[in-house]
């Protein structure tokens, strides 16, 4: 099977995708309409939470008599560094392959993407590096920007990264022999059916 076909199949069987048809489909649009407000709030919040820095500075400057160290180590650049790491955390595999957001945008008590695809997606990333396909890696790195900049722990904004993981999974699978491809995909479809019924059970209990 070609990457394209596998990719589409993986999207269709992924819980985060079909869940959108179970919940109210207009929710995603409501969220997107609100996104300018979310972005504004996120940007303005970056430099507001400085109380901890002030406390450390105060400790250093008054108790330990080290005013220079206090200013050198604890300042707003530290907040920017933190933000950079929070940005990278948008790629955290746990979010996509295990926990989800825990909100209405994700199916409850199951993973947004079938867990068994996790090692395959990472093998796909390694293969992309090996084949120097850095454009796709870069797209992956950028994919969580929307989720970060809106400051919302919502799958509606993080789904581009989910698509990236699905693509790398499809990329890896496309290198497998047809026999193993079919076996794995059949297994994945059965597992996704299991997840579908599990969600059904949880909703109705």
């Amino acid at each position, binding site marked *: 099977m070609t990457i394209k076909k596998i990719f589409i199949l993986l999207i269709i069987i992924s819980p985060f995708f079909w869940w959108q048809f179970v919940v109210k489909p207009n929710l995603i649009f409501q969220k997107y309409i609100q996104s300018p407000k979310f972005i504004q709030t996120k940007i303005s919040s970056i430099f507001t939470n400085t109380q901890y820095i002030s406390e*450390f500075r105060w400790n*250093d400057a008054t108790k330990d008599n080290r005013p220079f160290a206090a200013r050198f*180590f604890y300042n707003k650049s530290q907040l920017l*560094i*933190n933000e950079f790491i*929070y940005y990278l955390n948008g790629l955290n595999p*746990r979010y996509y392959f295990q926990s989800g957001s825990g909100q209405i945008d994700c199916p409850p008590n199951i993973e947004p993407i079938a867990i068994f695809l996790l090692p395959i997606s990472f093998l796909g990333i390694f293969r992309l*590096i090996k084949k120097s396909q850095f454009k796709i890696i870069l797209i992956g790195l950028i994919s969580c920007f929307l989720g970060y900049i809106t400051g919302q722990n919502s799958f509606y904004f993080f789904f581009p990264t989910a698509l990236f993981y699905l693509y790398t999974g499809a990329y890896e699978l496309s290198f497998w022999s047809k026999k193993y491809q079919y076996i794995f995909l059949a297994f994945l479809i059965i597992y996704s059916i299991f997840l579908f*019924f599990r969600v059904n059970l949880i909703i109705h209990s």
Partner: protein
Amino acid sequence: MKKYLLPILFFVAVIFRFWQLTKYPVSLSMDETAIGYNAYSILKTGKDEWGEFLPLAFKSAGDYKPPVNVYLTVPFIAIFGLTEFATRLPSALLGSLTIVFLVLLLIKLKVNSKAAYFAGLWLSILPWHIHFSRASFEAVTALFFLVTGTYLFISWIENKKLFHLITSIVCFSLSVWSYHSERLFVPIFVIGLIFLYRQQIDFQKVKKQIIIGLLVLSVFAIPFIKLFFLTPAIKTRAAVTSIFRETTLSNALHHGKYLNTQDFIFDNDIYITFRHWLGKYLNYYNFQFIFLDGMQFTKPGYPNVGIIYLVDLPIFLLGIFYLVKSKNNLLKKITLLWFLLGPLSASFTMNEQHPLRSLVWIPAFSIIIACGFEQVLKLKIKKIFLISYFVFLSINVLYFIDIYKYQSPKHFSEYWQYGYKQIAQYACENKDKYDEIIISDTFGSDGPLNTGLPYLYILFYCHQDPQKFYQTKRIEKFSFHQITWETDSLKPNRLIITSPWDVLNSKISEEQIIKKINFLNDKSAFIFITTKTNDKQK
């Protein structure tokens, strides 16, 4: 020059691990005190604090400590006496020596020697390893034996010398005996190593060596198996820290009582447990934990330090890039094995992202960092890169020192049982003035329900005779219990040392309070109160 590099790295490691060793962390923890006193007891009587002769698991406060650290501490107690320095010295020393064997291991794994030395430097100044090396943590000892064992195993693969095989088995076994995490990690890791090197082991040729090796292994394994099946030593610890104790998991489980078949199939306990465990396991692969706040030196939300320095992020990514592209398949596979197994043991326990339980993960990072350096050395802009790296590294190191020396003690002096040392020293000096010293086991500023083990500190700092203690289970002139002011205050000529929680609503005159100790965040820790002397003494 090259021959001086290892001693220099060792020296750097020693500086970071021995500088003001007794001052940071701010106080001996309960575990350290127990290790120190049990080592003292073994030295003086050959028995632990419970009177058991040369035990293989130290019951201590009921947590059954692994024995290696206690026995390693014995010679240092013999030389330096029962002191904080002697207690912390073995871990600091083995932590420093780990750097030497890590470099040797990396070279054995065919990493460029320059990159291996860089990785040695990286480990010698790594907060993750420095902190735990400074406080007599068993995990540091276990890691030392694990790294050394791996180095010796690969040496054996290369030269098939029986000595290397035996010492490797001894090291792996000591690693298992040293710390709980390694009990799961080492067996899986060694099986993985044997599998990876299977083509280089001619099992027919080395049959004799393997039989001897198995005999050596049995010397360590049989007592362990006996301990596992016939005593509570290993099971107790596993049960106390088990993932099943987490309420989020135990509440979700059906415990075999399913309502119907649908429940049995789609909400099975095995699936729920697997999903829960997986979340904990994947939690370790988290940029925030690794680069920002994994060390938990300060409270959540405050500036913190990751398990590796932030400046290492580009080197780390380059290392992954190099490994993926590398033709050294064995190196790739060993790194992957170590990287995936590293947080495994920790993920089966109840705390989230535990840097101590995942200490066994360090060598995986070391290999990736070494590969990153190897890649840097191939860059055209390597000089600029390295200069910038070392400038930012220096800032990172100074930042770590600031957090570690100035900020962390203010946040977590309580966590290190700060105050018990001061109590013990005061009580020992003044015990002749009182008929009895009553010390409350209520401890901390969070609430009245937390307790500590003050008796351990009295044993340690007052150098109590171990034989007397394990025979009577009492310390003369001392008693330890929660203070009931109404009754305890009526006893004449007593010194009551208590947490403020125990006497919150009691009427105590200022004259009776002779001393106060605060935690380093200025919250009240202990109050020393005297009761009235009786008429006879007057």
